[in-house]
């Protein structure tokens, strides 16, 4: 062990030596200083868990020689007595952009999109820049460095924060002297990734979060293909990525959902990303823990809202108010769950905000030792630099803090921040703590002087009995200046004197109001008054933290509802099967399934629900929904088959709850209609309160969205550059892609090496019958066209969605075997829906097409029962057939009719209890059940409303108090899309 230490120090010495050795010096004489510095009598935190009381820290040439209880101090040592003071390794921030400027955004408002890359010899996408070297644009920033040092940091990891693949970073010590040769600890300190596009390019793709994910996946496949020598051309991006393989990879995710998304990509390619989180990890702590990843966590806790105007306060959601209340608990919860994480100043406006936020986290229960580790040993370990930084073990850089006491105490003063053995004074440590009560004798009069506050910034109060004399106190460089005013006579007294190192008396010169000089004596009589302590206790009281709900928004559950067996007694049962509508019938639910349908069933242990006069139906299924997703369109390419809505499910969208309140239990979240070939769908159950992945059907049928007409031609906005611009072009686009997919598939099946292409994989699935198409469609010409294209390639279109002119080609649809999922009565909103008629569903159904009524709209989706009723009005369908259009028919179109869509023994217990005829505008859903779990209950909804009101009122009061107490506040705001930032692609 000792030998290794010796070797290490030798190596490091050599390093320093070399740097000095071969540099000629002309402006001064070249001489070495090999003296030691010894810091004695200090409480030394060698590591967060290794503490030496009254120990000595010995350093030389910028390195730690040793830190021990007793150290033999060499003769040539400068000794500094740190009695009563503490020494900590200085902090490390592993995620900053220190010294590296981000590119300025390119103005692009109103100009038509740029589809192709602007660089040559690099990857095909401008947002992929693994070849970018942070060191190339690094310029040491002295001003910023001082700010960071003041906040306790000694080493920063920095990189060019721009793009999806951002290249490599730089690890730098905040040493103002000596130049980059000394301070650069590592010039390739890992590589960096994010979901955010580069500001330096306007290339459209990826235009969404799911697109960014797909792009990252494809990048890794392409790197693999390239590394095997399969590519004839030169790609400097891929070459850089390949060269940096094995380097630590940092991924800026930015919130809990993106943490999981980044981890998922990492898992696919065996990459252990260190994930830069968002501070909301506590809301999904189980999943976060499940990633087994290490994290870098920002602590930019939200400020309270200024709620002094109730009219404006009304706009703030409970979710956002709670965030203010709960977010400071994030570090504690992460640490309670034994997740490895480091802290960062990232996302803070300035480093000086770091301490207060950290103190807040500690007040919320974050352990101080763990906090210290999260700032020292852990970041060092994450960076793979524990042998150089993060502790005061021998051989490490002499990067340490000298403080007046415990580093995370509010009252503690940071005196010095040493970096690479170089002292940086933050506050003079020789400054004496003057706080206390003094007897001040001036010109024969005896005043009472009280000094309080921080050692470096003391405050004064001067009085005689009840008479106060407004005063000002300044204390720097050992000199004290005090001025005070006699308000009655308007006379000003000015005193100044040196503060002695020892003793309780301060004396000096006094300038009397009459201009004459005199002297003063201030004698310390005792500690400052009690008042301050009381205040302190009050501040230290544990904060009141609102309980977390699932999901953590207004209508979340305090505890998740559980599956239960239940018996609906005496209901009108709409089976959506050949049995039709059964009167006075019981439905028994067991273990999440429909167990039995019949009369006078024995409840056994099931909860009995009296449904007399009420109706029980299968849960409504919406074939075409866009709720509960963070992004819908990847419009950057005319084909985006590689993207998947499953990647971007938003399980916290309140519209899920509202849909449940309308009797909806399953939806297909379709990609938007920006491209002829859209993205893959997510088919989910509305299990409110569960994590996104839990919502997706097990063994979900695979779907993809296609689109025709005005949207894919980009007819209704100013874009003239993207193919296709006509319906003629749409056909050729499909033919082209399917030709290519076929060639791809043939090559793949032949066993030859092939470049793995996610987009082609998905298209090949269609050709092989493993993936179904739901195609956005309006006019008959294009509908017919797509069926012909499919027939030419030997597959079948599964569903035409919207299909507003389906009635014109219903016979052809029947023949092709495609279903129709349509609006009940929408039209007139654009040119291609001129001939849309509300009789469409009826005509198609009568012609033998499987027809569903869908919403494509978060409002309409919660009244799909009423939309189905319109089919009775327009086209005289029977009520039973109409009802099937929102239950078993969409289930058939989604290939889920063996599981859901009807009331049949053995199927999932996805049921709705209605208080009235379900097709009536008067009906309300009383209970909505998925797999035997009651996710919506009208009675429970009332309790939730009450709870929301109460919690809002509590939080409003807390925020008002925060403002009264001088806390920072921000103006009220109603969020549109909570996770979106300006540069975030949705």
């Amino acid at each position, binding site marked *: 062990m000792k030998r290794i230490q010796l070797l290490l120090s030798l190596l490091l010495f050599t390093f320093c030596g070399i740097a000095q050795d071969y540099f000629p010096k002309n402006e001064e004489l070249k001489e070495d200083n090999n003296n030691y510095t010894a810091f004695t009598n200090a409480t030394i935190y060698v590591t967060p868990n290794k503490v030496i009381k009254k120990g000595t820290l010995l350093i030389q040439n910028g390195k730690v020689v040793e830190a021990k209880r007793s150290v033999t101090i060499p003769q040539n040592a400068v000794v500094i007595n740190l009695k009563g003071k503490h020494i900590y390794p200085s902090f490390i921030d592993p995620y900053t952009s220190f010294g590296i400027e981000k590119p300025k955004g390119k103005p692009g*408002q109103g100009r038509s999109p740029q589809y192709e890359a602007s660089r040559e010899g690099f990857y095909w996408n401008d947002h992929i820049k693994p070849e970018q070297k942070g060191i190339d644009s690094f310029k040491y920033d002295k001003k910023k460095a001082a700010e960071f040092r003041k906040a306790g940091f000694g080493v920063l990891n920095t990189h060019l924060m721009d793009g999806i693949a951002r290249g490599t970073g730089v690890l730098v010590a905040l040493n103002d002297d000596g130049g980059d040769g000394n301070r650069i600890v590592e010039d390739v300190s890992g590589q960096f990734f994010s979901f955010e596009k580069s500001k330096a390019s306007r290339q459209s793709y990826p235009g969404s979060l799911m697109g960014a994910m797909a792009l990252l996946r494809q990048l890794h496949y392409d790197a693999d293909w390239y590394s095997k020598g399969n590519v004839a051309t030169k790609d400097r991006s891929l070459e850089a990525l390949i060269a940096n393989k094995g380097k630590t990879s940092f991924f800026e995710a930015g919130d809990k959902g993106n943490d999981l998304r980044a981890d998922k990509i990492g898992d696919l390619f065996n990459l252990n990303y260190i994930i830069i989180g968002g501070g909301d990890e506590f809301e999904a702590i189980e999943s976060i823990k499940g990633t087994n990843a290490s994290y870098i966590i920002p602590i930019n806790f939200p400020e309270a809202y200024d709620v002094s105007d109730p*009219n*404006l306060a*009304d*706009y703030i*959601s*409970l979710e956002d108010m709670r965030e203010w209340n709960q977010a400071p608990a994030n570090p504690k919860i992460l640490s309670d769950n034994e997740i490895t994480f480091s802290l960062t100043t990232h996302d803070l406006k300035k480093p000086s905000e770091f301490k207060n936020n950290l103190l807040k986290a500690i007040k919320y229960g974050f352990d101080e030792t763990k906090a210290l580790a999260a700032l020292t040993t852990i970041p060092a370990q994450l960076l793979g630099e524990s042998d150089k930084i993060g502790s005061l073990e021998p051989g490490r850089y002499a990067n340490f803090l000298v403080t007046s006491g415990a580093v995370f105490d509010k009252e503690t003063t940071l005196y010095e921040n040493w970096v690479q053995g170089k002292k940086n004074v933050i506050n003079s440590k020789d400054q004496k703590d003057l706080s206390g009560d003094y007897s001040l004798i001036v010109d024969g009069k005896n005043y009472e002087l009280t000094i309080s506050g921080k050692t470096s910034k003391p405050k004064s109060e001067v009085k005689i009995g009840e008479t106060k004399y407004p005063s000002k106190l300044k204390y720097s460089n050992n000199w004290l200046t005090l001025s005070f005013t006699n308000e009655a006579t308007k006379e000003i007294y000015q005193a100044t004197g040196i503060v002695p190192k020892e003793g309780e008396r301060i004396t000096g010169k006094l300038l009397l109001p009459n201009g004459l000089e005199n002297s003063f004596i201030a004698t310390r009589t005792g500690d400052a008054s009690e008042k301050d302590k009381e205040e302190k206790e009050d501040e230290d009281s544990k904060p009141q933290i609102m309980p977390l709900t699932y999901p953590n*928004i207004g*209508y979340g559950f305090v505890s998740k509802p559980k599956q239960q067996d239940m018996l609906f007694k005496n209901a009108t049962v709409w089976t959506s099967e050949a049995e039709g509508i059964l009167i006075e019938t019981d439905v028994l639910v067991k273990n999440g399934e429909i167990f039995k349908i019949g009369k006078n069933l024995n409840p056994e242990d099931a909860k009995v629900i009296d449904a007399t006069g009420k109706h029980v139906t299968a849960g409504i299924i919406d074939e075409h929904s866009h709720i509960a997703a963070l992004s819908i369109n990847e419009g950057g390419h005319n084909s985006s088959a590689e993207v998947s809505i499953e990647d971007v499910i938003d399980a916290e969208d*309140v*519209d899920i*709850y*509202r849909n449940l*309140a309308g009797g909806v239990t399953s939806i297909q979240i379709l990609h938007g209609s920006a491209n002829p070939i859209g993205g893959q769908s997510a088919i989910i159950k509305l299990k409110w309160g569960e994590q996104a992945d839990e919502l997706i059907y097990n063994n979900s049928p695979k779907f993809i969205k296609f689109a025709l007409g*005005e949207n894919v031609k980009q007819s*209704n906005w100013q874009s003239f550059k993207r193919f296709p611009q006509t319906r003629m072009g749409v056909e050729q686009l499909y033919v082209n892609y399917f030709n290519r997919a076929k060639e791809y598939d043939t090559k793949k099946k032949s066993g030859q090496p092939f470049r793995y292409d996610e987009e082609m994989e998905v298209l090949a699935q269609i050709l092989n019958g493993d993936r179904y198409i739901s195609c956005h469609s309006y006019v008959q010409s294009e509908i017919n066209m797509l069926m012909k294209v499919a027939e030419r390639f030997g597959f079948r279109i599964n569903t035409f969605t919207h299909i507003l002119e389906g*009635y014109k080609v*219903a016979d052809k649809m029947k023949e092709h075997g495609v279903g129709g999922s349509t609006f009940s*009565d929408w*039209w*007139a*909103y*654009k*040119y291609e*829906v*001129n*001939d849309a*008629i509300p*009789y469409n569903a009826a*005509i198609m159904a*009568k012609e033998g097409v499987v027809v569903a009524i869908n919403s494509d709209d978060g*409002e*309409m989706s*919660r*009244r799909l029962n009423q939309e189905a*009723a*319109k089919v*009775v*009005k*327009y*086209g005289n369908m029977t009520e039973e057939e109409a009802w099937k259009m929102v239950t078993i028919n969409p289930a058939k179109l989604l290939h889920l009719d063996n599981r859901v869509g009807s009331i049949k023994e053995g199927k999932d217990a996805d049921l709705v209890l209605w208080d*009235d005829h379900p*097709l*009536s*505008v*008067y*009906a*309300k859903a009383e209970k909505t059940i998925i797999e035997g779990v009651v996710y919506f209950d009208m009675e429970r*909804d009332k309790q939730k409303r009450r709870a929301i009101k109460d919690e*809002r009122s509590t939080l409003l009061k807390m925020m008002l108090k925060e403002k009264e107490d001088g806390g920072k506040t921000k*103006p*009220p*705001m*109603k*969020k*549109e*899309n909570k996770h*979106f*930032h*300006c540069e975030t692609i949705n």
Partner: protein
Amino acid sequence: MKTIKQLLIVVLVIAGFQVLAQQTPAPAQIAAITIKGATAHIGNGQIIENSTIVFEHGKITAIGNESTSSRGREIEAVGKHVYPGLIAPAKALGLIEVNAVRASNDDDELGDFIPNVRSLIAYNAESKVVESMRPNGILLGQIAPQGGRISGTSSIVQFDAWNWEDAAIKVDDGVHLHWPRGFRRGRWWEGEPRGYLPNKKYQIQIEEVIAFMKNAKAYGKGIGVSKNEAYGEMGGVFNGSKKLYIYADGEREIIDAVSTAKENGIQSIVLVGGYQAYRIIPFLKENNIPVLVQHTHSLPSKDDDDYDLPYKLPKLLVDGGLLVALENSGTSNFQTRNLPFYAGQLVGQGMDKETALQLITGNTAKILGIDDAYGTLEIGKSATLFISEGDALDMRTNQLTHAFIDGREISLETHQTELWKRYSEKYNQK
């Protein structure tokens, strides 16, 4: 032969789109008509079972039970329901044909204070969208310009006319003012956060409204001053001959709007929208403000709001004792045909069916100031009414057999029913 037939269809389709935009308007009523045996929903909360309704020369001349004697042509309607023609306020019907086709949009003119811009002269009496209102029972509408602060002046029309002049039943009935919002969308492209923020210019924008009102009022008193059409058009709202429709949703905005309008001598104020009106019912009552409240088929505007707040909002106002009718200014024109169902939604919230009906008939007529002739089935009023097979407020049963505007029996066919019939025939469907 087949090709010729197909060609003919194509020609017809094209012609249908371009020329044959609406059913031929019905001729004036000559002979008396009696509707016998239906349940008559008066539109004022009353109902007459097994009713007899007689109308002549466009006006209702008798209404009562089975003992009332018939006159003229008798329409047998036992088991059916008769309703006053439904009224759609605050819409741009006939000003927009296809939303996405700019050339077909005439609803929103440039300028912030342009009360002199009049909807009536741009109203397309042959609009296919207007035509599609009638088979659902909507026979009258207030055509309102959109956008800006004061977007213009509306007129009230009936939906079976050759041209706008024939369609008008009340010309230039009101001025439409879109009140500034205290909370506005952040301009994220300028670096503001995405979402809604307090509107720092709110007070300034109110000052602009006040300045316009004061100038308009002063202008009215001047003699021989140079012409200012915008100020001139405001005369009616000061002398009470025109209403001022103020669009506002937030509690504070509503209070500001009503107070400002009152202070500036506006005689007759109607609140439009009123999302948070339920919180200040006593204020609205005290100031005698009727509300055209936002329709029921919309989403709550805040995450923490009750999921059914839009469903029950009109009921809360009615229960509070306000004069209330439904509007759907926030939706596309074509949606207006769902007006009866917007009212139907309230029944599920516990409102009496006849009260719900008032919100799209009698109350609307009162608020718009056309209740002397429209909105209810009463002697002396216009025979603007329809017969439905069943409950017109429920989708399943809203099936019209007859509709009359001023006693004229109008066609219930539309571009859409024609296509339905043509293609039903193609497939031999029944």
